[in-house]
């Protein structure tokens, strides 16, 4: 029975979670839509994460990364000064601004990136965010805002475990009841004086022809099930956690320092592959940071060795897909706006990265079936799928899944 129960249970769970995700997305949607003023903390946070975070710690901490901590910066410098410094610090220094030159000297003449495209409002937003964050107590990294398939499978698995225990207990009870019943019948017979059937020894009874046949049948069934299951699992490597050439910690980088994933994996937004950052990207920060909290200088020295000797770092690839599967990161990250953690799990809590999801086809398809897409926001869909647009308007459907748009068809991934 349990076998049949599981899939429907998953479906139910995923439906529930999809609803939850949907509700959450609404909350976020309203969140972002109400704060559309020219200067906003939310915008500032986004800009900060994308542009500043790789060199400055989050403003709630007081720590030097490449550049200084920006905690309470608005109290140290005037807004006008900050605007001209952030936009073009070179020009500011050239104009002979003493403060600017002093900072430049203090940080070993490492020049800050220029952000010529920032508007005044952008910079004001950043300052607003810094101001806002400076007054908060530092918090540990939050749990991922993931949802859907991966987590569900996890839940479903623990649920199955409980079911198995229940099954075993029930089987034990029924065996006991059966024995008791037998004994009772035996004694009753004795009492009434019926003909008492010859009592077979326990072991003989167990190894009766019928039982042996039944056990054999069960063995075959079990082995068969096990073979199919294991056979399906061949080539799948969930929890694969190889030893990497450098003990790089995502927990420190993505978790504690909150560096945007896309800062290093810049391909995720543009290309099929998320891409492993080149050594030069590591050097952007590690030119200045020569010592880490866990491994000291030992691991960071490997970056310098690679850079100096012109020898690339041979990372071990964790997520491997077969040749007949086409997967495109930018499709999911940019067009689909899926969070990295949805598939990769709570990466910001992992010291060593492991394969979080099974990457099985069922796992892919479940998400395509159940998860809402950017159908309403993306102008690509405007001229297409009139029926779905109408149904969304009339409220007949709540959201459009990948499956509604053909996302579960063979040639979306196999060609």
């Amino acid at each position, binding site marked *: 029975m349990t076998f049949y129960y599981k899939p429907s249970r998953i479906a139910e769970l995923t439906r529930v979670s999809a609803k939850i995700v949907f509700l959450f997305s609404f909350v976020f949607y309203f969140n972002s839509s109400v704060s559309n003023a020219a200067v906003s903390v939310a915008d500032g946070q986004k800009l900060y994460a994308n542009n500043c975070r790789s060199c400055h710690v989050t403003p709630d901490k007081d720590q030097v990364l490449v550049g200084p901590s920006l905690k309470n910066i608005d109290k140290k410098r005037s807004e006008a000064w900050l605007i001209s410094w952030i936009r073009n610090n070179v020009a500011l220094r050239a104009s002979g601004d003493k403060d600017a030159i002093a900072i430049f000297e203090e940080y070993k003449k490492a020049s800050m990136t220029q952000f010529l495209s920032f508007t005044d409002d952008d910079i004001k937003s950043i300052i607003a965010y810094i101001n806002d964050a400076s007054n908060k107590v530092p918090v540990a990294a939050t749990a991922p805002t993931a949802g859907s398939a991966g987590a569900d499978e996890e839940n479903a698995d623990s649920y199955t475990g409980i079911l198995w225990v229940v099954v075993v207990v029930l089987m034990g009870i029924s065996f006991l009841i059966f024995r008791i019943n037998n004994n009772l019948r035996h004694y009753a017979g004795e009492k009434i004086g019926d003909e008492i059937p010859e009592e077979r020894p326990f072991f003989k009874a167990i190894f009766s022809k019928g039982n042996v046949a039944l056990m054999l049948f069960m063995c075959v069934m079990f082995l068969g099930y096990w073979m199919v299951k*294991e*056979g399906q699992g*061949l*080539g799948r*490597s969930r929890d694969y956690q*190889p030893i990497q050439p450098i003990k790089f910690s995502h927990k420190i980088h993505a978790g504690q320092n909150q560096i945007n994933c896309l800062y290093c994996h*810049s*391909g995720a937004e*543009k*290309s*099929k*592959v998320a*891409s*492993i*950052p*080149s*050594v*030069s*990207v590591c050097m952007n920060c590690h030119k200045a940071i020569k010592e880490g909290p866990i491994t000291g200088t030992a691991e960071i020295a490997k970056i310098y060795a*690679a*850079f100096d000797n*012109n*020898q*690339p*770092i*041979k*990372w*071990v*690839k964790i997520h*491997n897909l*077969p*040749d*007949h599967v*086409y997967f*495109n990161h*930018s*499709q999911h990250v*940019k*067009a689909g706006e899926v969070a990295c953690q949805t598939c990769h799990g709570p990466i910001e809590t992992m010291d060593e990265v492991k394969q979080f999801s099974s990457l099985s086809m069922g796992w892919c398809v479940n998400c395509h079936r159940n998860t809402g897409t950017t159908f309403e926001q*993306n*102008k*690509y869909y*405007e*001229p*297409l*799928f*009139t*029926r*779905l647009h109408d149904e969304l308007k009339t409220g007949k459907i709540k959201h459009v899944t990948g499956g509604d*748009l*053909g996302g579960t*068809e*063979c*040639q*979306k991934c*196999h*060609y």
Partner: protein
Amino acid sequence: MENKSYWKGLAELEETPEFIHERDKEFAEELPIEEIFNSNFVQKPRARRDFLKMLGFSVTAATVAASCKIPVRQAIPYIIKPEEIVPGLANYYASTYADGSDYCSILVKTRDGRPIKIEGNSHSTITKGGTSARAQASILSLYDKARTSAPEKEGKIIEWSAADSDIKNQLAAIKTKGGNIRILSSTVLSPSTKNLIAEFGTYYGNTRHIVFEPMSNSGIISANEKSFGKKLIPGYNFDRAKVIVSFAADFLGTWISPIEFTKQYVTNRKVSKAKAEMSRHYQFESNVSLTGSNADKRIAIKPSEEGDAIIALYNMIAGFAGKTAVTGGKVSDKAAKSLNKAAAEMWANKGASLVVCGSNNTNSQILINAINDILGSYGNTIDLDNYSNVAQGNDKDFSDLLTEMEAGSVDALIIYNTNPVYSFSKGKKFGEALKKIGLTISFNDRNDETTSFVKYHLPDNHFLESWNDAEVKLGKYSLSQPCINPIFNTRQAADSLLKWMDSADDYSNLIKKNWEKYVFPTQTQELSFQSFWDNCVRVGVYEKAATATTTFAFAGDVNAAASGLGGKKSDGMELLIFESVGLGNGKYANNPWLLENPDPITKVVWDTVAMISVPYGKENNLVEGDMIEVSAGDFKLELPVVLQPGMANNTIAVAVGLGREKCGRAGNGVGKNVYPFVTMNVDTMNYSNSSVSVKPTGNKYELAITQTHGTIEGRNILQETTLSEYKKNPKSGNHSSEEFEKIDGVTLYPQTIHKYEGLRWGMNIDLNSCIGCGACQVACSAENNVPVVGKDEVRRVHEMHWIRIDRYYSFAGDKERVTKESHSNAIGLGNQYDDVKDWEDIEVVHQPMLCQHCENAPCENVCPVAATNHSSEGLNQMTYNRCIGTRYCANNCPYKVRRFNWFDYTTADSFPWNTYNKSEGVAMMIDDLTRMVLNPDVTVRSRGVIEKCSFCVQKLQDAKLTAKKQDRPLGDGEAKTACQSACPADAIVFGDVNNKETAVAKTREDERNYHVLAELHVKPSIGYMVKVRNNENMA
């Protein structure tokens, strides 16, 4: 007009017993069922025990294999990532494919640093985004392992520096003694290289540059010198010609600048209600050329008749103009009738007519010039001011060089990109003469027939590894840029010359300097040279406006020309040597994509064949594959015959391009070398021979021909009409659409009706535009990793092309509609066809055939595992990882476009040498170097699965994704299939048919649009446009 009967080959026309046997079989190959059941293994008494043993072994093997660890894969990033490279994203670089007389402005698609595909560059006004099969296939030769990997001296590897100092010393010694230095090359299109060669000449003195082209046009050059004092090949404007007469000039296939001419030609062949006008095209030729197959009227004449035919046309035109006639011009009545019509039409369209001639005979070309002069073609359809720089071979120079060499008066010979030992009729003599020269250097890319005679072999880079420039026509410049570092230890030829001139410059700098000096001042838009240069590199071309045309007075001697030309007609057997459309002059004979690209007319792959006329074959009891011995002078060659409808009687036509001995694994020993048949006619090479003898040898040979691998069984696959009928009724000739549209929507399975709520992909192919060149086939192979299977496999009907071009013949003027009855009547005719039909008067249709992506696809509902099914965008999807290889789908496909991987052709499975290797071409993808050409976005198929056209789904997905990422709707024409973008004739339109504004949706509304086999109600996604012929009253 009723439709006529079409046939793919003689066997089909005459319904030979073998043909019927083959046709009625389910699979082309016999299945060894009987064999297996009668085999020892099955019949053995203790088969049960063997079975158990094998079962035990398999289970153990499976267990062992399953317990293997998953291999550790590495991800190795750059140390410093170049800014423009994003791993996984393709970059396109503008470049130029210029090799000898081939020219194509291209875009090179590179993925992660390796070039994988060639696309046309639409910025060029010459090729306008079109490509050819050779340009498409040139990318594969980049990864050719037969290329020489390091400089060699007398066969031993040598350092570049050592070779340089050796050669410099010897050149210096030659300079001191005043010795002769000769540089022999194919046509050089690069002005910088030409400049450099000239400078090299000044540096060392006594240097001459000789240009050799095996398929020469030097007759045109010398005729223009004699007629107008202009020693050049003019520019031609086929787009301005309303009447075209061609004497054996295959201008769509091989003549001078085929991509350019195709683009021009089709502008006047496309017909619509808005523009119901077409050009008229007469073709007088001996063989059936690609151009001839597209002509409105082709008249078969023997090679020896050509001179008289030209004289006859001259006399007719001269008559109109009131000029005196020249002597000669006696032609057959049939030819005379057509010549009369052609002359009258051209005279009526003075200034908008064009006569071209493929002959290398100076006299022929002088008369052609005279005709064009009278017709006012100069300044209109022919442009002597904006001349062409291709095909600059000079036969006289070359034969002088050979004389010099034999006399021992050449001290140094530098060979650059030419291979005369193979491609010159007296190649052996040339090879012997090479030995007499003290210093011989070859820049050729491989140790070919000529290079094996030289002392220094200094391999040149591939063009995709080089900087270069080209000036294909006056003022039409283009640039080549390297798209990959040199794979082997090679060096660009020009850099070698620079080294020997003690120049500190490298060639890329030199090009830049030349452009700054000569090209930059001719424009005013860009102010700084750097921005001009950057823009040119980005766009790939810089084109000056055409020079204003001036008038030239014709000063040729027509009487002398005519007297050297007329009265040559012979009654005996004649031989014609022509250039192969796919393989060209033989330089790319080691390219498997080209070797397996069927000849547009005979559909033969991997071979040299002798085309003979059908009546000749019948008279001499020759059938396809019989061997004949052709001898001319002291040269003999045994060749298999193909009975070619449309051939001039008593003529044999053989294509050059094969028979290489030293080109590499794939091409060595394939076909025969027919260059030795070429003769020297005073100063020009002559490609026909009127004194040959032929004798059947009685041997048989199995040809690999793709044309008969499918039959039409009299079905109404092709639809055609004539221009005047079309003008009266745009729906004329289109039989199927109305008849079957009324049953639309009737189905037994309403639940399977597809809704197509988003996009709905569709294609349209214009049969009027398609010329049948085969560029799409190579492009498709390159884009989709379609394997090459080799000659043996094609013989077994295992070819893998996703798109094929079906070539159908019909008797000209045959207007019978094909019905079951008329067809069986036709069968009854049998060999009597000879009596009633004119075998020389044949019309040809080229029809590209690929997966039709049917709405009610018959393949889909027979698949037991649903490996092929329908997408919501109208694609008939093929899922390789689901396919178990029953081949039911292939069997059920009415269009016969599904291909089965009988073997692991591309070594997708893990054991590298466990592959079918009977023919060398099969295993081309086993080495890691060649595999670099594979498209990483497309699965490499393994053994045992079906594959077929996917509408380039990877490109469609990419276009959609780009639009989504940019948050905008998909535009029309953004998603292009590989065949569509390769097509030089713009015959293919593709897009979303749900959107009524797209080009392809508009074709659906066109009256000419029809679906092949519409009567089956499979509802294909591909529409074809009825072919319109402008062939009335052409005699």
